[in-house]
């Protein structure tokens, strides 16, 4: 079977910093793939490169056989993405946010309407469809973002820390949707998380990145065996060490990160 995501010798440097350093991996169609690593390890940079938001300094990446760098527009139709931070327009209603997305992805009006209804119902927000998004809670926004990411029938869904800052109930609900989509539509899921239990229970395979390099890849079982530990958290700490990391972030990111830390720590 051909891999739906293939990353070949990809490097991204920011000045002297090797944010991602000669990374190679593939993800099979229909797989649920977790991408783990400490803060600043290169997770978000990898997702940004895979989703055309950053250009790799070297190497090649393909989504469903399409070159992400050379055929950006075609590659963008293949995936949906839920960003780490919300990316909805708060001054528009839930429905308007969905509709705007559908138009940007060139969906026909008729199909668009039906698909929006189907997805917004799936994430249980249909009764709130005409409400301005700025009045939504964090969990509602995240649900709507997932619905939006799925609108154009992507083959791959990227989720960058989709459950960050959400309560356990909402996290469970989200993973239930995501698993259902994976089973029903055969959608490939690529996600990052800091909650290792999530990766352990949901992912078919797990890759761990640290200092820009892949340090391990395999099923949760394989990672436990490799490190001689009995749970993924121990295996992860064994592989990445227990030292706390400083992040080097772009200015916009670092500001958001700071705000988030303040909120999380409170």
């Amino acid at each position, binding site marked *: 079977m051909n891999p739906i995501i293939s990353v070949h010798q990809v490097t991204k440097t920011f000045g002297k910093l090797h944010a991602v350093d000669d990374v190679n991996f593939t993800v099979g169609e229909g797989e649920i793939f977790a991408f783990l690593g400490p803060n600043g390890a290169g997770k978000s940079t990898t997702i940004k490169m895979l989703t055309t938001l950053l250009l790799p300094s070297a190497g090649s990446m393909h989504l469903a056989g399409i070159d992400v760098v050379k055929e950006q527009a075609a590659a963008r139709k293949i995936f949906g993405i839920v960003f780490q931070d919300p*990316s909805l*327009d708060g001054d528009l209603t839930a429905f308007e946010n969905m509709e705007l997305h559908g*138009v*940007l*992805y060139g969906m026909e009006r008729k199909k668009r309407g039906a698909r929006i209804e189907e997805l917004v119902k799936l994430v249980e927000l249909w009764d709130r469809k005409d409400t301005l998004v700025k009045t939504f809670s964090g969990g509602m926004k995240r649900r709507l973002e997932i619905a939006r990411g799925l609108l154009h029938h992507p083959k791959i869904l990227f989720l960058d820390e989709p459950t960050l800052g959400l309560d356990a109930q909402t996290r469970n609900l989200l993973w239930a949707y995501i698993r259902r989509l994976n089973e029903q539509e055969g959608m490939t899921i690529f996600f990052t998380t800091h909650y290792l239990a999530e990766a352990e229970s949901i992912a078919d395979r797990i890759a761990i990145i640290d200092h820009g390099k892949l340090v391990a890849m395999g099923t949760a079982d394989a990672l436990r065996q490799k490190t001689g530990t009995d749970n993924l958290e121990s295996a992860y700490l064994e592989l990445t060490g227990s030292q706390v990391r400083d992040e080097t972030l772009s*200015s916009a990111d670092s500001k*958001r990160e700071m705000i988030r830390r303040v909120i999380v720590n409170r």
Partner: protein
Amino acid sequence: METIYILWLRQMKKYRRSGLRMVLSVIQPLVYFLALGFGFNAIFQQAGRGSYIQFIVPGVIAQTILFTSIFWGANIIFDKQFGFLKETLVAPVSRTKVMLGGALGGATIGVIQGLVLFIIALIFGFHLYSWPALLLTVLLMSMLSFAMVSFSSGIGAVVNDMPSFMAVTNFLVVPLFFLSGSMFPLDNIPGVMKAIASINPLSYAVDAMRATLINQSHFGLPVDFAVMTGTLVVLVVFSIYRFRRTEA
């Protein structure tokens, strides 16, 4: 086309929902119009220059458009900070369309604000020299607004935080406005000031509107129109270029 339309529509909806801001943004130029217009009217007339209220209306309309449009890029910064920009950047649409859709929205708002000022001026006794020329005025307003919105969007695409954006635009807006001949005639002013005014694109926009609204012109309408077109093209290209280079 549908992409540009939906991004334009987004700005229209946001504008309609902005409530009080819609009203407030007209207040400042209105104060200029009323205070200066009626304040200096008598002196202006004594100097044999006719009605100052007539003279200042094109300037105040240009001011409204300038102030509405040059801060437009703040919306780009908000879109960056609240993440919405990423949604458009990963979508399979060209950055050119993303820029044009938003900028056309901003330009439309600029023109609406300009027309509101115009209507208020009519109520306060402004006398339009020719109604058909109003159409031409609306065209000029659109050009000015679109040029300024594009410029501001380009700045918004480069700068990542609001304080820097405000520093850049505030630095520009005051000299642009005061050294444009919007408040005073450009003949009989010191040479240096005249020189600055003649390289200020806003001078030509004000002058063009003065030509179409009250049939007075310093540079002549063809010159005005040529400079405005040139400025518009340069600023739109600048903005598209900056948008294409934006990374999230």
